[in-house]
């Protein structure tokens, strides 16, 4: 089934990519990272995490690096980093526009 490529990341997607920017992580580590970084502001349920990981892997934004027993580890790809930077720029633009026009 042809899926639409990602253009914009949701908040959950953004933080999942962010969690992999500097180190490889498994699912529970990603959840922990997002929880710590956002001080529980962004909840990340297992269903959402799994769907995001599957979609990112399919689009080549992340790749599986190791399977140790029941633990699967992921790393971000160059394409994923590019996607993250584009999203970050978009958000910066949004914030700049908001600060300039909205305050």
């Amino acid at each position: 089934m042809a899926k639409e490529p990602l253009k914009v990341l949701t908040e959950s997607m953004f933080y999942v990519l962010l969690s992999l920017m500097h180190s490889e992580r498994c699912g529970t580590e990603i959840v922990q990272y997002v929880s710590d970084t956002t001080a529980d502001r962004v909840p990340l349920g297992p269903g959402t995490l799994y769907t995001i990981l599957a979609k990112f892997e399919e689009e080549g934004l992340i790749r599986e690096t190791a399977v140790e027993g029941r633990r699967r580890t992921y790393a971000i790809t160059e394409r994923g980093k590019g996607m993250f930077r584009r999203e970050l720029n978009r958000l910066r633009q949004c914030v700049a526009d908001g600060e300039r026009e909205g305050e």
Partner: protein
Amino acid sequence: MSEQYDWAYDALLPGGLYDVAANETWLENRAKEGFHAFRAMGSRIYFAKGESAEIRYRLQPMLKEKETLEQDRVELYRSLGWEYVDAVGGVFHLWRCENPAAPELDTDPVVQADGYRYLKKRMLRSAAIEGMILLAILLLSVTAGTVLRNVLRDSLPLESLLWLTAVVCFTLLEAVNVRTMLRFLKHLKGGEEIHRPRPYRRRQWLQRAVVFCWAGFIILQAVGLFWPAGNRDMIGWSDMANDRTPKAGTIYLDLEHMAEQGQEMRFEVALRKFHELAPSVTQVRMRASEGGIGVTADTTHYVLLSGRFSETLVNDIRYAYRNWEPFEEIPVSGLDRFLLSTDNGPQVAIAVKGVEVLEIVYGGDTDLRTQGAYFAALLG
């Protein structure tokens, strides 16, 4: 899991397969009543009796056909408080969570909507297939005809009623399924979370009606098909009164069916139907010769139970002579209707007055068109 319970039972998902919120609400309500889902087979959920508990149930769509659940995924979910129950309907994974502090299974509606792509495609495909099957059955039942249809169509409207009710309910359910899923996806894509609890009782009743009607329809079909040949006549009708004396009436033979089956045209083997619409039927057959030319007149006088039956009988007689010239309606004073048809000589006339019907099949020189007043005088 079932071993720890005293007994178990199973039930169909009330919201069809695709009303996720309604089905989850139903599972949670069952858990509050002490019935815990522990297994699934198709859309059927198996419950075991236990203690009443507040348990969250969530249905998560499979991302592809026959998706298998990898152990690392099960572990990931478990580490966040979610236990796997079973696959449901080949399209969902069912999860349960007893810990109220555990996070929701899906926390991002937009991501969740993305997970429904395969399911949406599958739902639309199955709706199309089911629609085609329904249409095929409908066409078959209209064109092919069955023993049951021949024998019971007029006498027992139950078959048609069940069939129609099942078709209507089924179509309604399918429409509701498609609408529910499309609305559901629209909400998710708009970033809205699923609203729970969601009512399901009305759909549950609709679903029960479909199952009941289909079952009744199939049973009636089976009865019609496998009824012993010698007893096929008089199903639902009896030509005997309670004291076993014959009743006045009309026996119809299904000659068309016999011809279709290549059977010998005998009364004993024919599909028969007793019609008590005419408590009084008198037939007089006259044969004479006028100047060496044969004259025949078969006159049948029916007294029916109601004017409605008169109309039915007139239609039946007209149908019997459908290969003759079309019936001409002739206004005659003293008669409700007077109809005449010919077939290169022989004439058939139908005179109707209230509940009385006179059928005359005549072969002779007289033009029955001129005899309306005479027939009127015979009736009433």
